[in-house]
C-alpha cells in the first residue's frame, strides 16, 4: 500500500528569487569584476570561447550584489571545468560528471549560498547525464552553465554527445554513428524550470541570460555555444557572422511574437500544419497563420520543447534566449520545509534529552 501526502508550502505564493536567503552586501557596498578574479593564471588555449564566458561571469557577478563568500562554483572535468579556479569565490573542481550531484548536497544543506555548476557537453551529457536530468527533475536551486563546443577538448578531440552524426574525429575515423543530444530538448524533457541558450560571442545576451538564470529559483540550465579553436574550430561560425546570424537566430523574448531574419526576408514561427509543434515560414507567405507569441512562463513545457526542435545540425534556425522560466517548488526548499515542520511538530530542535529518548526507543527494561 502506498500513500502520498500533499507537500503544501511553498508551492503556492509568489515565486521567490533564486537569491532569496543569500546574504547581500551591505547597502551602498559593491564589488567589482576584480574582486571576483582569482590570482590563478588562466590556462585555456588562445582563442578559446571559455575566456569570453569567464569575462562575462566575472563581469556580471558583482551585479547580483552578493557577498562573494556566499558564491560557490562547482565543476566536473573538462576544459570548462577549470572555471572555478579563476573566480575568487568558493569553488570545487570535482570529478567527471558529478558536479550536479555534489551541488545537490550543498544546496540542500545551505540555503545561504548561490551555487553555480560549470560543465561541458561531455561532462554533463555523457558521463554525468544521469545527475543532470535528476537535478533538473528535482528542481534543485542551482545555475548550470553547460559549455557546448560539440567536441571533447581536454582528451584532445574525440566526438561528444552533441557532435553531429558522421563526425570524423580521432576516435571515429569513419564518422561517428551517434545521434546527438539537443541539450535544450533534453532539459525540457526533464521538466527543468529554467532553460536557456546563449552564445559565448554575444556578451550582452550571455550576461542577461546568466542574470535571469541566477535569479531563477530552481535548476537553471543555460546552454552556451562555445567555440573550441583547436579541435572543432568554427562550429558556430554561422551564428557569429553578422549577416548569417541575423538569418538564423530566433531571439526568444517572453511575450513577443517570434519574428526573425533579414529585413528583406523576414521569417515567422507558426504552429505546424500538422497541429503538433511549430515551424518556420516566410513572413510574406504566412497568410493568415497566427505568429507564435513566446510564453516562457507557462507551466506546460510543450511550446518550449517545440521551439527547441526548430534547431538542427544545419543550424538553419537556432532559437536563443530563455525557452522556459516557470515556477515549481524547489527540492531544497521542500527538504528544509520538512525539517522545519518536524521540529515544529515535535517541540523544537532536538535536545540531549530528546536524543536520550531516541536512543531508548519504545521498549526498555532496567537492571538495578
Amino acid at each position: 500500500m502506498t500513500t502520498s501526502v500533499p507537500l503544501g508550502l511553498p508551492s503556492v505564493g509568489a515565486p521567490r528569487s533564486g537569491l532569496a536567503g543569500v546574504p547581500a552586501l551591505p547597502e551602498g557596498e559593491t564589488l567589482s569584476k576584480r574582486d571576483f578574479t582569482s590570482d590563478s593564471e588562466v590556462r585555456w588555449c588562445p582563442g578559446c570561447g571559455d575566456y569570453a564566458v569567464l569575462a562575462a561571469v566575472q563581469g556580471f557577478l558583482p551585479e547580483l550584489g552578493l557577498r562573494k563568500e556566499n558564491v560557490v562554483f562547482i565543476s566536473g572535468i573538462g576544459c570548462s571545468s577549470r572555471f572555478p579556479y579563476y573566480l575568487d569565490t568558493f569553488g570545487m573542481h570535482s570529478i567527471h560528471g558529478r558536479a550536479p550531484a555534489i551541488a545537490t548536497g550543498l544546496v540542500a544543506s545551505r540555503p545561504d549560498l548561490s551555487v553555480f555548476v560549470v560543465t561541458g557537453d561531455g561532462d554533463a551529457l555523457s558521463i554525468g547525464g544521469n545527475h543532470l536530468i535528476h537535478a533538473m527533475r528535482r528542481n534543485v536551486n542551482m545555475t548550470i552553465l553547460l559549455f557546448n563546443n560539440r567536441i571533447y577538448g581536454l582528451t584532445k578531440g574525440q566526438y561528444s554527445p552533441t557532435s553531429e552524426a558522421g563526425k570524423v574525429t580521432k576516435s571515429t575515423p569513419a564518422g561517428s554513428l551517434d545521434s546527438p543530444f539537443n541539450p535544450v530538448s533534453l532539459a525540457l524533457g526533464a521538466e527543468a524550470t529554467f532553460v536557456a541558450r546563449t552564445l559565448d560571442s554575444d556578451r550582452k545576451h550571455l550576461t542577461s541570460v546568466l542574470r535571469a538564470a541566477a535569479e531563477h529559483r530552481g535548476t537553471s540550465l543555460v546552454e552556451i555555444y562555445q567555440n573550441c579553436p583547436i579541435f572543432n574550430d568554427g562550429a558556430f561560425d554561422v551564428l557569429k557572422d553578422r549577416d548569417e546570424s541575423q538569418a538564423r537566430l530566433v531571439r526568444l523574448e517572453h511575450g513577443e511574437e517570434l519574428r526573425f531574419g533579414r529585413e528583406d526576408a523576414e521569417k515567422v514561427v507558426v504552429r505546424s500544419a500538422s497541429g503538433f509543434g511549430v515551424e518556420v515560414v516566410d513572413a510574406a507567405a504566412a497568410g493568415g497563420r497566427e505568429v507564435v507569441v513566446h510564453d516562457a512562463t507557462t507551466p506546460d513545457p510543450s511550446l518550449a520543447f517545440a521551439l527547441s526542435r526548430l534547431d538542427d545540425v544545419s543550424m538553419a534556425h537556432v532559437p536563443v534566449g530563455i525557452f522556459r522560466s516557470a515556477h515549481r517548488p524547489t527540492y531544497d526548499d521542500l527538504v528544509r520545509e520538512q525539517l522545519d515542520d518536524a521540529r515544529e511538530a515535535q517541540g523544537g530542535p532536538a535536545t540531549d534529552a530528546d536524543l536520550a529518548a531516541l536512543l531508548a526507543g519504545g521498549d526498555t527494561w532496567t537492571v538495578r
Partner: protein
Amino acid sequence: MSTTTPGPTQGPSQSATPIERLDRVVIRFAGDSGDGMQLTGDRFTAETASLGNDLKTLPNFPAEIRAPAGTLPGVSSFQLHFADHDVSTPGDAPDVLVAMNPAALKANLADVPRGGTLIVDTDDFSRRNLAKVGYTTSPLEDGSLESYQVHAVPMTSMTVEALSDLQLSRKDAERSKNMFALGLLSWLYDRPTEQTERFLRTKFAKRAAVMEANLRAFRAGWAFGETTEGFAVRYTVPAAPAERGTYRNVTGNTATALGLVAAAHRAGLPLVLGSYPITPASDILHTLSGLKRFDVTTIQAEDEIAAIGAALGASFGGSLGLTTTSGPGLALKSETIGLAVSLELPLVIVDVQRGGPSTGLPTKTEQSDLMQALYGRNGESPVPVVAPSTPADCFDAAMDAVRIAVTYRTPVLLLSDGYLANGSEPWRLPDVADLPAADPDFATGPNDTGADGAPVFHPFLRDPETLARPWAVPGTAGIEHRVGGLEKADVTGDISYDPANHDRMVRLRRAKVKGVEVPDVVVDDPAALAGGRADVLVLGWGSTFGPITAAVREARRQGLSVAQTHLRHLNPLPANLGDVLRGYSRVLVPEMNLGQLALLLRGRYLVDVTSCNQVRGLPFTSAELVEAITALAPAEPGPAPVALSEETR
C-alpha cells in the same frame, strides 16, 4: 536444551502445566517468506528482551521478496538464542524448530540436533506441498522424525477457526497464523504478552479487522497451549545478570543509525545522508529519514555515485556528510571517495557487507569488502576503516568513525555486515552527556601570513599534530578558496604538477591516516596471569567477534590454552599489533572471506598466521571455530576435556 532445577511459575499465566527452568534456549522460526517469520521472531525477541534475558538473533531470508510459495528457496527463518547468562552468538543449532510448512521443515531439519523439538503446522502438509520439496511421504507420518520431539499442530486451521466470525476470507484469516505460532511459543516459554498486544494495536491502529484478527490468533495460540495436553511441561529462562542500567534490544543497522545521529548531534553538525537503496543497508536510510527533527537530511539519490556526491557536497558546506551502501554500491562510490581523500573533507561511508562478487548474495553476510575498503581506489588513497563487532557495538563504532572523520578531515569507512545489520542483542543505553563530542573547529579567517606580510588563508596548512587541514566552509569571509581532485601544492592548495610536491602530498596524506589515534588491541590471555603466553591467539575483526568468543570459551573449557583479541580499527592498525602477533607462534585468523586480513597481516608484519575461512553467507558456528583452534593447538595433552558446552552443541 540443558535443564536446571525446576522453579516457580514466573509468568502471568495460571496454567496447570508445570514450569521447568532452563538456562538457555535456541529457537528457530521458519516458514515461507510471506509467512511473517521475521515479525514473529522480532516480537518473540522483544518479549524475551523485556524479561532481561541476554540474547542474540539471526534473521535469515532469501533475496526474493516472495519466492514461489512452499518452495525451498522461499524459506525465511529467524533464530533467537536467549539465556540466563551472557551469550555471544545466536546459537549454532536450534533446540526448537517452528516449521510452518514442509519446505521450512526440510530446509532446517538438518540443523536440529537429534532429540530437539519440532513444532510443525500440519495444515500445509498436503501431497502437493510435500511434492514441491521432494518428500514422497509425509515426514510427520513415515517415522523419519522419530528421534525428535514432534508437536504436530494444525495452526492454520485453528487460526481460521478462531477468526471464523470476523468475516474474513480464508486467505486473509490464514495470514494471522504466525501470530498463533507466536502465542503458542509465548505460552510455552512463559513470555509476557502485553507488549505484543500493544504492538499489534499500534501497528494496525487504522485497520481494525486486521488488528482484531492478529490479536485473536495470538491469544488462540496461547490458549491452545494452556488447553492442549500435547505439551507436558512449560519452560522459563530467568533473567541474565547484567550490568546496572537501562537496556533495549537493538539491531546493528538501528545502532549504526543512532550512533551517527548521536555523533552529529554531539558535534553540533547537521547530518546529511545521501543514499541509494541497497540490501542490507537500506534500513539505515529508513531510520534516518524519520529523524528530521535531529537535523538529519536524507537524500535518496538517483544512484550510488550521486548519493556519495551529495554527501560530499554537504560536507564541503559544513555538514557531516554520510552515505550508506553495500559492496556493489561501494564499488560505484570509489572515485568519489578518492576525491574526498584528495579534498580532505570529513565523510562517513557505511558499507554493510554482503556476499559477493557482483550482486552475489544480497541478503547474506560476508566480510569480503575489506580489501575494497582499504585499497579499492586509484592512486595512493588511504582511508581509515572501522569495523563494529556486535549489533550494539555498531553504535560506538559509528561514533568513532565520526570522530575520526571530523578530527582528521578524511573519509572514513565503517564496515558493518549483513549479520550485524539484521541481528540484534540487548544494548545498555549510554548516558548522552558521556558521549564523545567531535569538534568541527571550522576555519574562521586567515591562518597564515603571505610573502607581503598580509594575512592569507592557506587551505592546506595542516595542524602539526593531526596533520588535518582546516575545514573551511563557504559563507565564511576571507577564506574563499578553490579545491579539487587535481594535486594541490602543500600549504597553499594551488594546483601543482611539481614532482616533489606530489611525492610530499602523497606521503602527507598517508602520514595523516597512519597517525589517526586508535587504541591498542587488548589481548584476553588467561596464561598471561601466570606470566606466560597462550598456545594459540585467535585474532578476528568485525562480526566474527561473537562466534570467536563462544569458541574461545569452549576451547578453554576443553583445556586448551587460547588467547583472544579483536580488531576494531583496520586502518590504521593498532600500534601494538605487530608486537602482539610476534608474541604468539600460532595465530588463528577466522574471516568470512578467503583470507583478506591474513594477507594484510603477513604483508605488514612479516609474521605467519593461519586462516580459517568460510563464505557460506552465514556467521561461523562456534563449533567449527573450536575445531580450527583445536587443529592449531600443540599436540601435547592438556587437562582432561569436559563435555561440549551448550553453545557448540
